[in-house]
């Protein structure tokens, strides 16, 4: 009986994650943070946009940007094909799509699986990451979405707001 309860409790403390592959790495997000996953539709390129914005797409009548994480971390380039996937997430009140090559099945992980990352993981600075999780034969890199999608603008805005607050 105690074992059953313990198992039930541990199930409750587990969480679900979705992993997607770009190049050789497997990135992961908590399932709760993912809005939906769609097959890559036509992507309209936006000229003169930063290189990690691969374009925009039509998601249920809304136009959302497509972000290439590999480009964002300057560690390569995601191969975007019509058969690929877009992981749709919401960050800072905005909906964006992350380009992925392959998306794995949903994985269940124990609560404490995510460990603090070493300073540099696969060429990515630690503050972009929530942590890493080791699984049999796999190494999942959990992204800190807010930091990943933070732009220069956001940083200057925050600094400006702080300055203004001091002056007024």
């Amino acid at each position, binding site marked *: 009986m105690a074992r059953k309860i313990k198992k039930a409790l541990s199930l409750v403390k587990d969480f679900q994650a979705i992993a997607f592959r770009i190049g050789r790495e497997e990135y992961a997000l908590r399932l709760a943070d993912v809005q939906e996953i769609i097959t890559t*539709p*036509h992507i*309209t390129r*936006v*000229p*003169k946009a930063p290189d990690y914005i691969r374009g925009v797409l039509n998601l249920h009548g809304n136009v959302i940007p497509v972000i290439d994480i590999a480009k964002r971390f300057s560690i390569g380039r995601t191969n975007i094909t019509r058969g690929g996937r877009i992981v749709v997430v919401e960050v800072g009140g*905005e909906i964006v799509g992350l380009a992925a090559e392959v998306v794995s099945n949903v994985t269940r992980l124990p609560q404490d699986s995510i460990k603090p990352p070493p300073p540099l993981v696969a060429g990515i600075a630690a503050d972009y990451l929530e942590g890493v999780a080791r699984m049999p034969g796999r190494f999942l890199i959990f992204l800190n979405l807010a930091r990943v999608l933070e732009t220069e603008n*956001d940083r200057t805005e925050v600094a400006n707001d702080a300055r*203004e607050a001091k002056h007024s």
Partner: protein
Amino acid sequence: MSIDKNQLQRVFLQETADLLESLESTLLDLEEKPKHDELADQFMRTAHTLKGSAATAGFDDVADLSHRMEDMVELLKSGRTSATAEYFDQMYKSLETLRRGLEEIAFGRSHSQELLAAELELGQWLEEMGAAEQDASQNHKAEGDNFSLGEYDRIRLKVLRKREIAPLVVKVDFAQEDVDKPGTALKVIAALKSNGDLVATVPPESELDQVNQSGNLLALFGGKLDAGQLRQLIEKEGATGCDATPYVESQNQLEKEESQSLVQPLLAEKTVRIEMEALDDLLRLVGELMINRSRFDQIAREFEAVLDDAVFSSDITGSAEILGHLTAELQSGIMQARMVPVARVFRAMKRQARKTARLLKGRVRIIASGEQTELDKKLADFLDQPLTALVEELIRATADRAGLDDVQVFRIGAERKGNQVSLIVEGSGSIPQSERISRILAAFSEYGGRLETIKANDSYRLLLWLPITLAIIPVMMVEVGEEVFAFPLEVVQETLRIKASEVSTVEGKRVTELRGEALSLLYLDESLEVERSTAGEGEYLSAVVIDYGSKPIGVVVDRLLGKKEIVIKPLSKRFGGVEQVIGSTILGDGRVALIVNARALADSSAVRAA
């Protein structure tokens, strides 16, 4: 007609938004021209209306505060208080409290405390300033109150007024030694009745023996007698004296009357209030309708190409055309419904100017024109924040540079030109520069806005061009490589087919000739970095000629796809906010097409007018 309380309350809440706006607007004007009695009267009338309907709807706190504000302006008008900054501070503060109180009511929350506090504040002010005279008028009120008038009596008063006879309160005194005061009273009453209209008496005719205690009689009388004649008449009957003063209608009666008459018109209004969301939904549906309509067009064309049956295909194209017309009209109607005057934005700017000036201990005047110019509500809502920030920054920068000792005058205006509206901000001196100002101005270009700066000797002018609506615009669709782009029709002068052989290169720039003048060319595939599989064109090039300052520019594309009306889908500001792109739209096949900011394109490429 029985009107239930809920209905009354709903109607009341709907109307208060307008009343509040009017109060604020009038207050701002009054501050600039405190001696203009019409403004004071207008404020008092509006406050009075608000008070009346609030009382009828059962919101006594709101009614009382409105009443006090009315009194405050009366104080100003009569000169018993002066138009100081503190006075207006207090008035704005009370107006804010009133607004908040009404908001609370609308949300079903309790509001009394704040409103009561505000009312007390005003009450104090009124006491200090207008104490003496207020007592006098209180007395009038007291006398007025003594008459308990029935419906019939009030109608008689109305009739008197219509005949331009001012009703009087006649106080008749009886001699001490008069042993038959009631008898004298009766005689006085009879005399009054035969010389005019006696509406009511205190004590009433049925209880005249009460004059034994009071020693006097109050009569509400209307007649064509002057004071002297009246006295003669009354003294003839044996009274010792009489005092006639104009009848001041007791407040309660006035309110009830006025608010009764207010409610009927309210319910018979020809306008309807509609939630912005509902309009947004309608607009979205129209957008979908338009997308589907173009699909229909496409299908109709495909049918035409395939079918041999001329009649059938012309039926389809005929219907498609009609559908097109209907959709266009529907869309136009909804767009029109979303238009609001820019006055609201101007009011917000004036408010901000006043606030900032007070903070910096200076004085600022804002002169507005073109307030009735209309634009899409979404646009107006968007403009609120950047424009008030702009006003604040301009004033601060001016203060930094030159101090605010003199009254700084700013002019703001709005003008409609076709599908665009231009907002003008004018100030004296040289243009104030600051990082914040630059940022605010940059924000406008996101919405397809264009900024023009005009400097004169001792003044500057900021001209902000904006599309009238953010929602739907007519565009010229073009194709480059495999991608589709849209040019807002606003900037398109015409379209051209140019012979490839007629393009020459002058100092590294390509030009052609258009009606005797040189036309600079810009190749869209180059400036947007679009990959093209077929590098070599045929004999002819297609180009869209766009306005660009004094000289137009020809934008060379692969194919012209024709004019269309599209729904603008904004691009994310954080990602993909690119200067050359105003927004995007969704095509019939589900793909996203970008709307090109032609001017920014020309700016950023090396093409300048030849």
